[in-house]
């Protein structure tokens, strides 16, 4: 059995996922996916686990600063031995850097002064071209102008759809020539993660959570504005 065919069984045991935006649920449950991934070589399974830990939003620590996240990402990527996964993870983090830059600029921030706010080869260029539309990178990233427009309009769902679509298409182009090998497994798992993320988005739940957060914030504001009881008593005639 040649190197490029050794995951024929694993890949045939994974159900077809279909298109991202048509999916109602993941093609198989997380437990079953993990059971099937037990067929991977331990070293390759480790690489995949590291990559997913870096890419899945649910596994990110929200208290970490950008600089700490960048240092951590570099450490993890240096530990990934498979060049295909390393390139894929690097591409995804560079994409997130671009989106982070768009969000910063949308908030009215000026160009960051040191390079530790983002990851990858575009950080310096973004800083240099901070005030240009799409940071002058629209040829390399054709989705950037559209993302900028959607962000400006506040169309967050459309923006999310655009970004996930760009990642999906990138994975599609990376899958060329990989049919029964480890790289095909990686692409499948990353797509499974995207479907899991997209299908768990719930508009009603998001609105409920938003209301909760607003109530919490307003309760704090009301408390701070309300005069103390003692003060009210002394003011009475």
């Amino acid at each position, binding site marked *: 059995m040649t190197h490029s065919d050794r995951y024929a069984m694993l*890949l*045939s045991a994974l159900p077809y996922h279909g298109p991202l935006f048509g999916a109602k649920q993941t093609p198989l449950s997380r437990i079953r996916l993990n059971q099937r991934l037990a067929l991977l070589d331990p070293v390759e399974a480790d690489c995949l686990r590291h990559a997913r830990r870096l890419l899945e939003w649910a596994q990110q620590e929200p208290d970490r600063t950008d600089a700490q996240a960048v240092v951590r990402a570099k450490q993890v990527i240096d530990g990934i031995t498979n060049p295909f996964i390393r390139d894929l993870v690097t591409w995804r983090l560079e994409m997130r850097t671009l989106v982070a830059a768009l969000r910063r600029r949308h908030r009215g921030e000026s160009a960051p002064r040191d390079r530790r706010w983002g990851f990858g080869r575009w950080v310096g260029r973004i800083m240099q071209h901070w005030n240009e539309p799409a940071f002058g990178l629209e040829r390399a990233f054709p989705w950037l102008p559209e993302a900028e427009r959607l962000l400006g309009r506040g169309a967050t769902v459309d923006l999310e759809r655009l970004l996930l679509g760009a990642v999906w298409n990138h994975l599609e182009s990376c899958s060329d020539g990989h049919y029964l090998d480890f790289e095909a497994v990686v692409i499948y798992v990353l797509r499974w993660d995207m479907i899991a993320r997209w299908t768990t988005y719930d508009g009603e739940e998001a609105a409920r959570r938003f209301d909760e957060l607003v109530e919490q914030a307003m309760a704090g504001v009301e408390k701070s504005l309300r005069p103390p009881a003692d003060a009210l008593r002394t003011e009475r005639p």
Partner: protein
Amino acid sequence: MNEFIIALGWTGLFAPMALGAIGSVIGCAVAGQAAIGAMVDTESGFGRYLGVSVMPSSQTIYGIVVMFSLQRDVTPETAPALFGIGLLSGLALLFSALYQGRACASAIHASKTKPEIFGLSLAPAAIVEGFAVFAFVFALVLAGGIPG
């Protein structure tokens, strides 16, 4: 020098059988693993998957037939022809079995999701088989022209 030429003749005599068998081993293993994986993921059509996965075994049979058609006294006169026909037909059988195994694995993978394309998905594997048959038939034709 004659001993070397005779050794090449014997190599050519057994090459179609040996190389065809190596190709069939790899091809059947790849397609067979895909079939097992498909069985894990589906509830029916198991026999169909197994049937497809043994397609690359035909190259071994072609190899055996070519070997018998080449079989004759190995002499300095016949050895070069035996070597050339045997080795090249063997290589053709090896690679056809290997790539047919991949084509079968892809067919199993695709038809598992879309059973209605089962027949059509076998077309690439059948075309690869066609090239193996070309190599087989013309090896037989040429073998008839070797003296002895």
